């Protein structure tokens, strides 16, 4: 039961996400039937699932929402921005209800219930005179007989039902279907037809001779009503006329049914589907053209057959379509398997151990020098590599799901601030490790909110400076040299550097009169306790933000940069490692310790040319390449060897050299975090275990390059060399 529940909750959250996305889409294209259907399906699936796990409060709430959606679908009401807002709120509310369910509460908190009622009231207050009675208050079956006097409702279905005689023998109880029907809506009036009943002595007690004419008020769609009779589809004749059917349809129906025309007409009048006058007119009109040619008596029969023929293919088609849907769904389910994340993590851990073990086998095999053993070991290494790649692939998810959440955020925040902003998403198919995706959401939300609040100007301001009235916010993701880059850019006013400097001086982050480059000024916004907004809104501007963003990203071994041009916009780019688990590395040695440089960042290796000066840059085919000695940077004991090697690395647009003692070749690196104790360590991103069992340290190349560039700037500024940053 618990498993069922958790599956329901997970799936419903997915459905909600789909629902929300579709709603937002619908806002821009209100007439898109497919989107509307998608929304309806999502709501319906949630309701259905909630019914299965017997969660009454979700069923009743979702039911009302579904009713409104159905009316939208039928074109009874129009979709406006207000309605979308309410529906979005409803989808949030369903999310909250799911949370309650997950927490194991039998009934949601009173406050939540009150919220729900308020939302439903808003839904109904939207000028949609709909029957919003939730499922559980549907009229019980035993009051059906007394409902005859009730005034006809405007949107009543008409259902004609004739059970075959053998239905009881097949184990079906007609009454249970009527009871079930009553859960979908209200049976306004029902007439029982006992015309087929033979005289008492010819009657078989095990046969069913009854037929029903039902006036049925419901917001369910035809498929849902038909669905009620799924089990007896073969054992009954079913005609369903939608609300507001044309009179002719009723006449056709009367013709199609086996009973006497006049008797049926009377019944329909009694049921309230049509009036007596309408019936008379209709029957007359029907007979007039018939009198022209063929004898009148044969036409009804012909029409009956024709009618039956027309109805049948439709039913068959519907059934086929329905079967097709079920089939598609099953196939899709077969392609996707739900796996608990910790099982996956365990697998990845094991694969990591396997990689270490196999490199150790490889090392030992090469020591023996036996060729068969070497061959077998290299085959195993190759297989382990493929296993590693496939295992890691399991954890990769597309970043698009994270991005699409922002449609809603941008919509809500820009509405709140009265700005008109368009969100453009690119690179949603870029894949990223799931653990990274989970943690990057919050920093991204912060950047997006900031861009809307501070970045993009108000519409009036924009028009005044000659920009398009509609602001533009871009989310972009792409791969770049072993990292993934996420960009948030806006076309707003850009960073106000004067204001930043003034604020930084005020907060004594810098000294007044200090000379800073533009990039340095821009990066001041990441300092703790910094905010340039003149007014603190409830969205941002409390000065607790950018530094948290920066810290969160750093904890993912990533970094964030900002670039801005006044008047044209600001761009934040977040650079993250692709995976948190295993990478291809390049092993180098310095002193007694081995270091790993992520292979994606290595451009080339060369021997360090003999140095004539003490400068920390060299001539790389005419290019000035700043470099740093790992020995000096890490203060390693011992003498520099006579021959040193340079590994040229690249991160983003920056290139630099790292000088090491030896080059040891490629190495599959299983990243082991160094832990809290070493959290202050800059330049080292983690550790790994070599085939020999020794621990090697993984270099954090972007931060090293940063240090190299800073050092270069320092060495230019001052006369003496600084060996460490």
């Amino acid at each position, binding site marked *: 039961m618990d498993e069922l529940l958790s599956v329901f909750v997970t799936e419903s959250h997915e459905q909600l996400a789909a629902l929300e996305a579709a709603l937002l889409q619908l806002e821009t294209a209100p007439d898109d039937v497919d989107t509307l259907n998608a929304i309806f399906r999502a709501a319906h699936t949630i309701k259905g699932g909630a019914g299965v796990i017997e969660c009454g409060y979700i069923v009743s709430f979702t039911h009302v929402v579904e009713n409104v959606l159905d009316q939208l679908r039928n074109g009874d009401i129009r979709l406006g921005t207000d309605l979308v807002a309410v529906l979005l709120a409803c989808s949030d509310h369903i999310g909250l209800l799911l949370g309650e369910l997950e927490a194991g509460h039998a009934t949601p908190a009173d406050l939540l219930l009150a919220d729900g009622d308020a939302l439903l009231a808003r839904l109904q207050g939207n000028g949609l005179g709909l029957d919003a009675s939730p499922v559980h208050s549907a009229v019980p079956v035993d009051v059906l007989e007394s409902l005859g006097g009730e005034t006809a409702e405007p949107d009543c279905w008409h259902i004609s039902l004739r059970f075959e005689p053998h239905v009881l023998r097949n184990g079906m109880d007609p009454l249970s279907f009527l009871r079930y029907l009553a859960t979908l809506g209200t049976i306004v009036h029902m007439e029982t037809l006992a015309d087929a009943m033979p005289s008492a002595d010819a009657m078989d007690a095990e046969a069913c001779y009854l037929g029903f004419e039902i006036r049925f008020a419901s917001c369910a769609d035809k498929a849902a009503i038909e669905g009620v009779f799924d089990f007896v589809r073969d054992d009954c004749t079913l005609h369903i006329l939608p609300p507001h059917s044309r009179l002719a349809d009723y006449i056709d129906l009367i013709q199609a049914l086996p009973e006497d025309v006049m008797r049926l007409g009377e019944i329909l009048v009694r049921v309230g589907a049509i009036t007596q006058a309408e019936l008379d007119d209709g029957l007359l009109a029907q007979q007039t053209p018939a009198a022209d040619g063929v004898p009148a008596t044969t036409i009804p029969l012909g029409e009956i057959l024709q009618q039956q023929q027309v109805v049948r293919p439709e039913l068959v088609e519907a059934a086929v379509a329905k079967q097709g849907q079920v089939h598609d769904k099953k196939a899709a389910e077969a392609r996707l398997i739900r796996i608990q994340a910790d099982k996956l993590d365990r697998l990845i851990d094991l694969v990591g151990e396997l990689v270490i073990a196999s490199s150790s086998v490889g090392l030992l095999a090469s020591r023996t020098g036996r060729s068969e053993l070497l061959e077998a070991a290299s085959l195993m290494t190759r297989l382990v590599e493929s296993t590693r790649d496939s295992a890691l692939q399991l954890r990769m998810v597309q970043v698009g799901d994270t991005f699409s959440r922002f449609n809603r955020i941008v919509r809500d925040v820009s509405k709140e601030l009265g700005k008109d902003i368009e969100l453009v998403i690119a690179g949603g198919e870029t894949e990223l490790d799931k653990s990274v995706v989970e943690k990057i959401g919050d920093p991204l939300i912060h950047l997006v909110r900031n861009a809307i609040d501070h970045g993009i100007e108000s519409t009036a301001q924009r028009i005044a400076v000659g920009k398009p009235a509609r602001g533009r916010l871009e989310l972009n993701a792409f791969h770049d040299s072993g990292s993934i880059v996420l960009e948030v850019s806006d076309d707003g006013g850009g960073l106000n550097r004067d204001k930043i400097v003034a604020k930084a001086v005020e907060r004594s982050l810098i000294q007044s009169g200090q000379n800073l480059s533009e990039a340095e000024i821009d990066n001041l916004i990441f300092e703790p306790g910094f905010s340039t907004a003149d007014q603190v809104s409830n969205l941002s501007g409390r000065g607790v933000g950018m530094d948290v963003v920066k810290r969160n990203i750093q904890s993912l071994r990533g970094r964030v940069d900002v670039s801005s041009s006044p008047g044209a916009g600001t761009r934040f780019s977040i650079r993250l490692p692709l995976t948190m688990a295993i990478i291809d590395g390049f092993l180098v040695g310095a002193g007694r310790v081995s270091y790993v440089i992520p292979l994606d960042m290595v451009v080339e290796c060369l021997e360090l040319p003999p140095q004539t000066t003490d400068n920390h840059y060299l001539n790389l085919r005419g290019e000035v390449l700043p470099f740093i000695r790992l020995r000096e940077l890490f203060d390693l004991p011992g003498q520099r060897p006579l021959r040193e090697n340079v590994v040229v690395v690249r991160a983003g647009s920056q290139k630099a050299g790292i000088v090491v003692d030896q080059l040891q070749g490629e190495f599959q690196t299983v990243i082991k975090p160094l832990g809290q104790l070493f959290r*202050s360590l800059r330049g080292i991103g983690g550790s790994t275990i070599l085939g020999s069992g020794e621990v090697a340290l993984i270099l954090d190349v972007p931060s090293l390059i940063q240090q190299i560039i800073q050092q270069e700037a320092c060495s230019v500024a001052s006369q003496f060399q600084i060996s460490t940053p």
Partner: protein
Amino acid sequence: MSQATALTRRDASAADAVEAEAGAKQYLTFTLNAQLFAVGILNIKEIIEYHQLTEIPLMPAFIHGVINLRGAVVPVIDLSARFGAKPTAIGRRTCIVIVEMHHRVDGADIQQDIGILVDSVNEVLEIPADEIEPAPAFGATIRADFIFGMGKVAGRFVIILDLDRVLSIDEMGQIAALSHDEKG
């Protein structure tokens, strides 16, 4: 395991009371700079022979390095340096005692194994609670808050260490950050 950490805590928590009633607790004794120390046995996972470890650059002297403990990277603390004395000289009997520590990061309880470098391990002793004196305010060679109590064993005093203090990840991390800044 939370009980294990509670046991080494100075405050008289319920667990301590229970233990005190039970009477004796077991301690591992070891020598360091010719002095006898003891730690509660519940935190100890294993004792391994010293082998070459990987030094981490730019760290204070008491962070000796990291070792590979069956696939996990475990930091090794030089206790002697941590107590402010000279770094441990590696000898034939030098051992690494692996202890399991718990600390909280952002509200989550994180378990971390830490190795401590000792000159030699001696034995496992039972020290009755009434044989443990409170730490002296001064006079000991190490910081008073590192001492859980002074156990009396065969007429000698054994310094029972408060490992939560000695191996406080927070404190050591801060010192590491400071020394990093100084060098950097």
